[in-house]
C-alpha cells in the first residue's frame, strides 16, 4: 500500500505535462473547436512517437504493456491540457480488442493503433441513454458468412475522425443465459453508414450514426455471438475510469487557475484569496479533486490486478460527476464576470468538464449500481473489503 505516485509514475506525469505545455496551448484547443476533424495530425503523430496510444497495449503489437494506472496518468494530463486528441476513444476500443478480440483481429488493428495510423471509437448508446443492455436495439442479423447491421447510435465520440468503430448490437432477445448482445468491429467508411455531427457543450466531436443495411464479414465479431455483455461492461468500465482521470486532470488545472487568480485579484483592499470565504472554497475544491483521484486510481489499479472493479468505477464516476462540476462552477464564481467572457480561456475547461460529467453514466445511474451491490445481496458489508460483484443486469 502506497497510494502516492512512485518514481516512474511521477516521471511519466512530469514529462507528459512538459510535452503538452509546449505542444498544446489553449490557442490550439480553440482552433480545433472550429476544425472539422477536431484534432491536429501532427500532434497525434507526436504522441504516437511517445507511445501513448500503445501505452497499455501488448508488446507483441508494439505497445508498452504498462498498467492502466499509467495510461490514466496520461489521460489525466490530456485532460489538464484539454488536448484535442481522439485518444480516449481510441485506447478504450483498442484495449477491448487487445483483451477480447481474436489473434487475427489484434494483429490487424493494434500495430496501426500504436503507430498512430488508426483512430478508433465505440458505439453503445441509443435513444435511451442508460448504460444497460436492454437499451440496445440496433440489430445485426446473420446473412451467410456476413452480418447486416441496422440501427442508430448516439453520442459516438470522434466518429468523424475514426477509421474503425466497435458497435454493440442486438443479435438475440435477452434470455436467462445472456443479454443477446454482440460486439462488431466495423469499418467507419462502410457503405450504408451515415453520420451527423452533434453540437455539444464541449465543442468536441460526437455524432449520431445511422447504420442502414451495413454488411460486415462474420470475422469481425469480437468474442462469441450473443456473449458481448460482459465484454461491453468491461469496456465501459475502463472507459469510465479513464474518463474520470481525464476529468480530474482538467478539473485540477481549472481549480489551479482560480486559486492563482485569487492570489492577485484584489477587492476591499486585499487579495480575494485572503478572505476565508474564498479560502475555504479553495480548500474544498482541492479536497474533492484529491478524493476523486484516489477513487479513480484505486479503480484503475484494481483492473490492473484483474480484480472486480465495477463498484469502484461507479464510485469514482458518481463522485467526479458531482465534485468536478462543483469545482469548475466555483472556479467560475471566483473569477467573477471575467470568467463569463469568451476571451478568458477558463471556459475551455468549464465546458469540457461539465460535458464529461454527463457521459458514461450519470451520478444516479452509478449510485444505483452501487446500491444494488450493497443492498441486494446477502452478507454483511464492510468498508475496505470487496462488496458483491454486480452481475450483468
Amino acid at each position, binding site marked *: 500500500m502506497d*497510494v502516492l505516485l512512485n518514481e516512474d509514475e511521477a516521471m511519466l506525469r512530469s514529462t507528459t505535462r512538459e510535452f503538452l505545455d509546449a505542444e498544446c496551448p489553449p490557442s490550439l484547443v480553440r482552433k480545433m473547436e472550429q476544425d472539422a476533424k477536431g484534432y491536429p495530425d501532427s500532434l497525434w503523430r507526436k504522441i504516437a512517437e511517445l507511445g501513448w496510444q500503445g501505452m497499455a497495449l501488448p508488446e507483441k503489437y508494439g505497445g508498452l504493456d504498462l498498467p492502466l494506472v499509467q495510461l490514466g496518468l496520461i489521460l489525466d494530463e490530456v485532460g489538464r491540457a484539454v488536448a484535442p486528441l481522439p485518444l480516449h476513444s481510441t485506447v478504450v476500443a483498442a484495449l477491448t480488442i487487445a483483451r477480447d478480440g481474436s489473434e487475427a483481429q489484434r494483429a490487424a488493428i493494434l500495430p496501426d493503433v500504436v503507430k498512430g495510423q488508426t483512430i478508433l471509437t465505440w458505439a453503445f448508446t441509443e435513444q435511451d441513454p442508460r448504460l444497460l443492455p436492454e437499451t440496445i436495439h440496433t440489430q445485426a442479423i446473420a446473412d451467410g458468412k456476413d452480418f447486416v447491421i441496422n440501427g442508430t447510435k448516439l453520442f459516438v465520440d470522434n466518429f468523424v475522425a475514426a477509421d474503425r468503430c466497435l458497435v454493440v448490437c442486438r443479435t438475440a432477445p435477452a434470455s436467462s443465459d445472456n443479454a443477446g448482445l454482440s460486439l462488431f468491429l466495423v469499418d467507419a467508411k462502410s457503405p450504408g453508414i451515415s453520420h451527423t455531427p452533434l453540437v455539444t457543450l464541449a465543442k468536441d466531436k460526437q455524432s449520431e450514426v445511422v447504420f442502414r443495411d451495413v454488411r460486415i464479414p462474420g470475422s469481425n465479431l469480437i468474442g462469441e455471438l450473443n456473449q458481448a455483455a460482459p465484454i461491453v461492461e468491461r469496456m465501459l468500465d475502463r472507459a469510465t475510469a479513464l474518463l474520470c482521470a481525464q476529468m480530474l486532470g482538467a478539473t485540477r488545472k481549472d481549480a489551479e487557475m482560480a486559486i492563482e487568480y485569487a492570489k492577485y485579484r484584489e477587492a476591499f483592499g486585499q487579495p480575494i484569496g*485572503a478572505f476565508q470565504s474564498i479560502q475555504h472554497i479553495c*480548500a474544498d475544491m482541492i479536497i474533492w479533486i484529491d478524493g476523486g483521484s484516489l*477513487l479513480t486510481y484505486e479503480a484503475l489499479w484494481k483492473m490492473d490486478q484483474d480484480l472486480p472493479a465495477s463498484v469502484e468505477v461507479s*464510485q469514482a464516476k*458518481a463522485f467526479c460527476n458531482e465534485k468536478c462540476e462543483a469545482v469548475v462552477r466555483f472556479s467560475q464564481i471566483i473569477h467573477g464576470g471575467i470568467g463569463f467572457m469568451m476571451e478568458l480561456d477558463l471556459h475551455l475547461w468549464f465546458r469540457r468538464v461539465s460535458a464529461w460529467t454527463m457521459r458514461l453514466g450519470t451520478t*444516479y445511474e*452509478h449510485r444505483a449500481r452501487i446500491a444494488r451491490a450493497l443492498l441486494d445481496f446477502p452478507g454483511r458489508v464492510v*468498508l475496505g473489503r470487496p462488496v458483491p460483484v454486480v452481475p450483468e443486469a
Partner: protein
Amino acid sequence: MDFGYTPGQEALRREVRAFIAEHITPEVMAEMDGHNEGLLGVTLGTSRGPAVRELFRKIYERGWTGISYPKEYGGQGSDRLSQYIVEEEFARANVAIGLTGTGAPAILAAGTEEQKRHYVPRLISGEFRFAQGFTEPRGGADLASLQCRAVRDGDEYVINGQKMYTSGAHYCTHIYLMARTDPDAPKHKGISVFVFPMDTPGITVRPLWTIQNDPKAPTRTTYGQSRTNETFFDDVRVPKTALLGKENEGWTVGTLGLNLDRVGAARYLISVLRDEDIINWVKENRLGGYSPADNPAIRDKIAELWIEAQVCRLMTMRSMSIVERGGHFSYEGSAEKVWAPEHGVKTSEAITQMLGPYAQLLNGSPRAVEKGIFAHNLMGSFQSGINHGSTQVMRDQVARRGLGLPRGKKG
C-alpha cells in the same frame, strides 16, 4: 501507486481476526458496556474489570500495542500499516485500542534518549497513559493563544493555569501539557511542552459531563464518552526534565504530535462505521412491513454516503503512505480531518431521515434500534469535527499551507 496489502499484512489481519474471535468474549463486552474511553481507559480507569485487563495483557503480549514503534523502546519495529490493520480489526470488534495517542509519537520525535526510554515502553505496556492538556477556557481552535504559564525556577518549572477537555485526566497517569514559557515572544514562539505525573501536588481535576452521559452511549458510538474534565494547575512544580523538546519550541512539538495522531484507523473509522451499520441494518430489518432498503431515495443516499466513506478510507491510506515515506505533510492530514468528520455528521443526519422517529430512541428505550446508537451518534459525530483541530481551522491550513493563499488582514 499500490492500493493493496502485502501477504504479510494479510496474514497479520487473519491472525488478529482469529484472536478477536477467541478473546473478545461476552464478559469483555459486558465490562466495556457504558465505558467508551477505549481499551486502556477501561483498563486503567473507569471499569478495571478482570476480563478487560486480561484481554489487554494478551494484546500486549502479542506486541500489538506498539507494533510500529522501534524495538529499542519496546515496540515491534514494524510498519505503520500493520499498526493500522491491528487498530482497524479491533475497532470493528468494538474494542478501541488506539493506545499511545498523541504522546508517544511526539516523544519519539522530540524527546531525549532518557525520555524515550522512560515513557515509550510504558505507554506501550499500558502502565502509563497521557491526558492531553492543550485547550483552555479562552481558546481551543486558536491553540497558540494559550495562557497557562510555566516559569523557570532553578531546576524546576512552576506551572499555573487551567486546561479544558482534559479527557481521561481522572484516570491517566500523566499530563502532556502545553504552557507558555515566554509571554513576550510572538504567540507561537513562547510555548513549551511538558510531561509529568498527574499526582504532582497542585493539580485538581473537575469533571465535565457530556451530552452523551445520560443514558450512557452504547459501545461503538462516535465519541461516546460521558465525561471529560477541566484541570487546574496551582503552583505545580515539575523538574526541568519534564520539558519535552526545547524551551519555547513547544508549538512544533505539539502540532507534530497532533498531526501524527490524526493518522490512523481510529480517527477515520469513527466517521465511517455508521455507514456500514445502517447498510447492514436496512439489509436485515424491516419497520412493520416497510423495507427502507427498497426506497429509491434511501438507496441513492446510501450509495452517496458509501462513496464518501471510501474517500475517508483512501485519505487515511494517503496519510499512511506519507508517514511511511517520512511524514512530510503539506495539507493532506488537514484535508483528511475536514473530510472524514464532516462525512460522519452527514451520515448521522441522513440516518435520522431513513429511520424517522425510531432514530430518536436512546439506549435503554423500548423500541430502540441497535441500543439507540444512531441517536447517540447524532450527538457525538460533530464532536470529531471539533476536537483535535476544527474543520474550519483545518480548511485554513489546507488553503494557506497547501495552496499558498495569503493570510487576511486583521479585522
